[in-house]
C-alpha cells in the first residue's frame, strides 16, 4: 500500500477503468459477482417450479427477468462504485429522499400483495422502495454519527432517530415487520460501532424488545408465524416443512440440476426460499457453500472497513456490510427453520428486481466508500487495519 504513489507514476497510460479496477476491492467485486451469477443459476431451478405454481405459461419467465435484473444490478454496482465518499453520501441522501417519497405514495395509494402494501407498480414491474431505503439510511446514519465523533455537540442522536423513525413508521404501517427488524438492527449496529455509550445501547435494545412485543400482539400474521414456529403442531408450518424436506433431500451433492421435486410444492421457491431449492438440487455444495460465500463477503467487508482512516467511511462501510450479513443470516435462518418466516429475500440470490437492486446499491456504495485513496489507510501516519487479504 505504501507503494501506491510510485506505482501510479510508473504507469502513465492508466485509463479510467484500469484506475477503477486497481483501486476497487477486488475480492468484494468477485464475491458479489459470484453470488449474483449463482442467483441466476439457481433461478433455472426455481423458475419452472414457481411458474408452475403461479400458472404462468413460460417456465423461463423468472430466469429471463432475473437475467435482466442481474445485468441492471451489475451496472448499478459499477456505476455507484465510481463515486467518491462524498459522492456516495450525496447519492445516499438522494436515495433516502426518493425512497421516503415513494413509501409515502404507497402508504396512500399502494398496490397490495399478500396482505401487505409494499409494492409500487411501474409498467409490468413492481418495486419495493424499502430496498433502496436500507442502504441509504445506513450511510446517512454513519455520516451523522461520524460528525458527532468530531464535534460532540452535533445532535446526531436526535436527527438520526428522526431519520430512522419516519421510514420505520411507514414500514410498520405497510406492514413489513421483517424489514423493520432488519433496518433496526443495522441502524443499531452503526450506532454501536460509532462508540455510543452502553446506556444508549441498552435503552435502544430495551425499546426494540418492547416494540417487538407490541408488534407481536398487534399484527396477527406475525403472531401466527411466531406461534406456528414455536409449536409446529398448531399448523401454519407447511412452507418451512417443505423447505426442510428440500434441504434434507439434497444430501451431499443434491439431486442434480433441474431434478428437484419438493421445490414444486414450495411456496415462494424463487424468492424467500431459493436457498432450499438450491440445497435440494446441489446439496451441501450449495447449502454450505452459500453460507461460506456470504460469510467471506461480510468478513472481508468488515476488514476493509476497519482499514479506513476516516470515521465516516469506516462506519458506513461497516454498516453496509453488516446490513447484507444480517439479511443473509435472517433468510438462511428462516430456510433452516431457526427463525419464523419473515418475508426476507437472500441478497444477490433471490429473484426480484427490488431485492437485486437493493443488494447492488448496498455493495456499490460500500465499494465506493472503501476504494483505495492516497492516505486512506493512514491515521496519524501509521497504517491501520488488522489483517490483509
Amino acid at each position: 500500500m505504501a507503494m501506491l504513489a510510485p506505482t501510479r507514476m510508473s504507469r502513465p497510460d492508466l485509463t479510467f477503468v484500469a484506475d477503477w479496477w486497481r483501486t476497487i476491492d477486488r475480492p468484494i467485486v468477485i464475491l458479489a459477482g459470484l453470488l449474483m451469477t449463482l442467483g441466476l443459476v439457481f433461478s433455472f431451478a426455481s423458475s419452472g417450479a414457481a411458474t408452475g405454481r403461479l400458472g404462468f405459461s413460460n417456465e423461463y419467465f423468472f430466469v429471463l427477468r432475473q437475467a435482466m435484473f442481474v445485468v441492471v444490478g451489475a451496472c448499478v454496482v459499477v456505476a455507484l462504485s465510481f463515486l467518491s465518499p462524498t459522492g456516495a453520501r450525496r447519492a445516499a441522501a438522494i436515495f433516502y429522499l426518493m425512497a421516503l417519497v415513494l413509501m409515502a405514495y404507497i402508504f396512500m395509494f399502494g398496490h397490495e400483495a399478500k396482505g401487505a402494501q409494499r409494492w409500487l407498480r411501474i409498467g409490468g414491474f413492481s418495486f419495493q422502495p424499502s430496498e433502496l431505503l436500507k442502504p441509504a439510511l445506513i450511510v446517512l446514519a454513519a455520516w451523522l454519527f461520524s460528525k458527532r465523533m468530531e464535534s460532540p455537540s452535533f445532535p446526531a442522536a436526535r436527527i438520526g432517530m428522526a431519520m430512522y423513525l419516519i421510514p420505520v413508521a411507514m414500514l410498520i404501517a405497510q406492514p413489513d415487520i421483517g424489514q423493520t427488524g432488519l433496518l433496526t438492527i443495522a441502524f443499531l449496529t452503526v450506532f454501536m460501532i460509532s462508540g455510543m455509550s452502553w446506556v444508549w445501547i441498552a435503552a435502544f435494545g430495551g425499546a426494540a424488545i418492547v416494540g417487538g412485543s407490541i408488534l407481536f400482539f398487534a399484527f396477527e400474521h406475525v403472531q401466527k408465524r411466531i406461534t406456528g414456529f414455536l409449536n409446529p403442531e398448531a399448523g401454519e408450518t407447511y412452507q418451512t416443512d417443505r423447505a426442510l424436506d428440500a434441504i434434507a433431500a439434497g444430501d451431499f451433492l443434491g439431486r442434480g440440476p433441474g431434478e428437484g421435486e419438493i421445490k414444486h410444492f414450495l411456496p415462494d421457491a424463487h424468492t424467500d426460499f431459493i436457498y432450499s431449492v438450491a440445497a435440494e438440487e446441489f446439496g451441501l455444495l450449495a447449502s454450505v457453500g452459500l453460507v461460506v460465500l456470504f460469510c467471506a463477503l461480510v468478513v472481508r467487508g468488515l476488514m476493509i472497513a476497519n482499514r479506513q482512516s476516516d470515521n465516516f467511511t469506516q462506519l458506513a462501510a461497516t454498516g453496509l456490510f453488516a446490513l447484507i450479513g444480517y439479511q443473509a443470516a435472517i433468510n438462511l435462518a428462516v430456510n433452516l427453520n431457526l427463525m419464523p418466516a419473515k418475508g426476507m429475500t437472500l441478497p444477490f440470490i433471490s429473484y426480484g428486481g427490488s431485492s437485486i437492486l437493493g443488494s447492488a446499491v448496498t455493495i456499490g456504495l460500500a465499494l465506493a466508500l472503501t476504494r483505495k485513496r492516497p492516505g486512506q489507510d493512514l491515521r496519524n501516519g501509521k497504517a491501520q487495519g488488522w489483517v490483509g487479504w
Partner: protein
Amino acid sequence: MTDLRQPEATVEWPRPTPRDQGGVGTMKGRTIALAVAFIAGFGLLSLRAIQIGLFRPVDEAATAARAAAAPPSKRADLVDRNGQLLATSLVAHSLYADPKRIWDPVETAKALRTVFPEMDEASLIEKLSSRSRFVWIKRRLTPKQKQAVWELAQPGLEFIEEAERIYPLGHLAGHVIGSMHPDGSGINGIERALNDRLTTGAGTEPVRLSLDMRVQYLVETELAQAATAFRAEGGAAIMLDAKTGEVIASASWPFMDPNRPEANTPNQQNNRVTNSRFEMGSTFKVFTVAIGLEDRVITPESVFDARAPMRIGRELISDFHAMNKIVSVSEILAHSSNIGTVRIARSVGAPRVREFFSRLGLMEAAGGELLENARPILPKRWSEITAATASFGHGIAVSPMAVAGAYAAVSNGGHYIRPTFIARDPTVPVASRNVISPATSTTLVKLMRDVVTNGTGKNADAEGYEVAGKTGTAEKAGPNGYDSNRRVSSFAGVFPARDPRYVVVFLLDEPKGYAQSGGVATAAYAAAPSVSRIISRSAPLLGIAPTRTLAQMDAPTGRADPGASSPSSRPSQKAAQGEP
C-alpha cells in the same frame, strides 16, 4: 452569566474528545467483535445446514406425497341462509406409488386395473416404471376402493390423507359456491373469494350465504327450462332482497358442478350473473324515467312527441313499435318508446344521466364478494348521443347483477345497497346511499306496475303478487352493427308492487323462437313468463302473502301450475307481432 466572564481566549483548554479518544479504538474493537459474531453465526448456520442435509430423515416418496397432497384442513363449511349445507370438507385417502419399490410394474398395473377398470394399462405401466420416486395413481378414493387396493398387497403403493371438498347439492348455485383446485385453494366463486376467511377463520364456524336454496332450485329449473326451450346461448337469473341487498338466488346457465371442476368447460364456468356484460336495452328506461321524476322535469302525466323518429347528430332514433302519437310517461314505459325516453334524457342532460347511473352502481363492477366480477363497458365520452342511447340501454353494457342492484335501489324507496352473497346480520343496519326520494320510488313502481298490467310485461304477472317491471329486448352488436337475429331478452322487476321486497332479473342470451312461443323470442315471451312462474312459485316460500279479492278466494282458479295454466304465457301469433 458567569461563563461570560471567563477569560476564554487566554487559556488553551485541552479539547476533550472522549469519543475520538475512545472512538477509534472502540470502533476497531467493536468492528472486530462484529466480524467474530458474524463468523460464529454463519458457522452455526453451516452446522445446521449439514445437520438437516445429512441427518434429517427423508422418505423421498412420502416427502413428495406429503408435499403434493392438499393437507387435511379445517376449511369452514358453507351453508345457505336457512342452514342448508352447501359445501363441507372431508378427509379422503389418495393413492400414490413409489416406483422404486414396485417389483413388477406390469403385475401391479394389472392388479390396479381390477379395482380401477377405467384406467389405461399402458399409461399405468409407464407411471409405475418411471424414475421418479413419487407418482399419483388416484386422488381421493372411496373407502371401498381403498380397502380393495389394500387387499392387492402390492409393494410400493401407499396412501396419504387429503382434504376433499364435497358439494352435496351438485350444480345448485355452483357458480356462487365455486369449486376447489386439488391443491386445496378455491378456483372460483365464494370458495375463491373467501379462501382466506374459510381457511384461517375459526375453522369450524360455517359461513352463511344469503342464498335460499329452495328459491335457487326454482330459479334454476325455470332458467334451464327457458334456456333449453329457446335454445339460448346462455342465461342468467337473479332474485335479490331489495331491502338488504342479499342475493336470494343467482343462477347462470349452462350450470356447473363444483364437484367436478375439471369437467366444466370455460363456457360452463362463466358466471353470467356477475361476469358477463350485456347491453340491456329497455330495462334501462326505468332509470331514465326515475331521473326525470326525481328532477321534476316530468310527471307521470307529462306527454312527449313520439310521432316521428328523432335525430341527434348523425343518429336516427326510432321506436321498435312506433305508436306515432303524443305519448305519456306511462306509455313510454308500457310501450317501450325509445323516442320518449331520449326526450327525457335530453331534458335532464348527459352529465346528469351519467351521474345518476353512477349512483345506481351501473358504472362499477357489481358482483358482490365474487371475484368473477366484470366491470361494465361504458361510453368513452358522455356526449349527447351516448347519453341518449344509454338512456334506453344501448352503448352501455353491464352485468345482470348490476341491473338487479339498480332495480332494488329505485324500487325500495331510493336506497342503493351493494349486493352481497353473505347473509346479513339483521341487527346491523344496512349501508346504503340515497338515489331518489321515496315519493319518486313509489311513483316509479306504479309506472312499472302499469307495464305489467297494460304493457309489454303482461306475461310476467303472477296472480296475487303484483309484479312490476320492465321488459328489455336488445339486439347484440355484431361485426356489422346491431344484428336483429341475435338478441338479449330480459325482464327486470320487483314484487309485490304495494311494498317491493324482491327484485327478479331474468335474461336469455340469444334465445331463438320456437313453435310454442309463436316463433318469437322477445322479452315478453322469452323472459316474462319465466319471471311469472318464478314469483308465483317462490313467493309462498318467502312468506309473501298474496292479495286476492273475496271473489277470487271464493272461486279458486286452480293455480297449482300457474305457469302452464296462465293464458297469457301462450301468445298468439298476432300478439307476437306487436311486441316491442
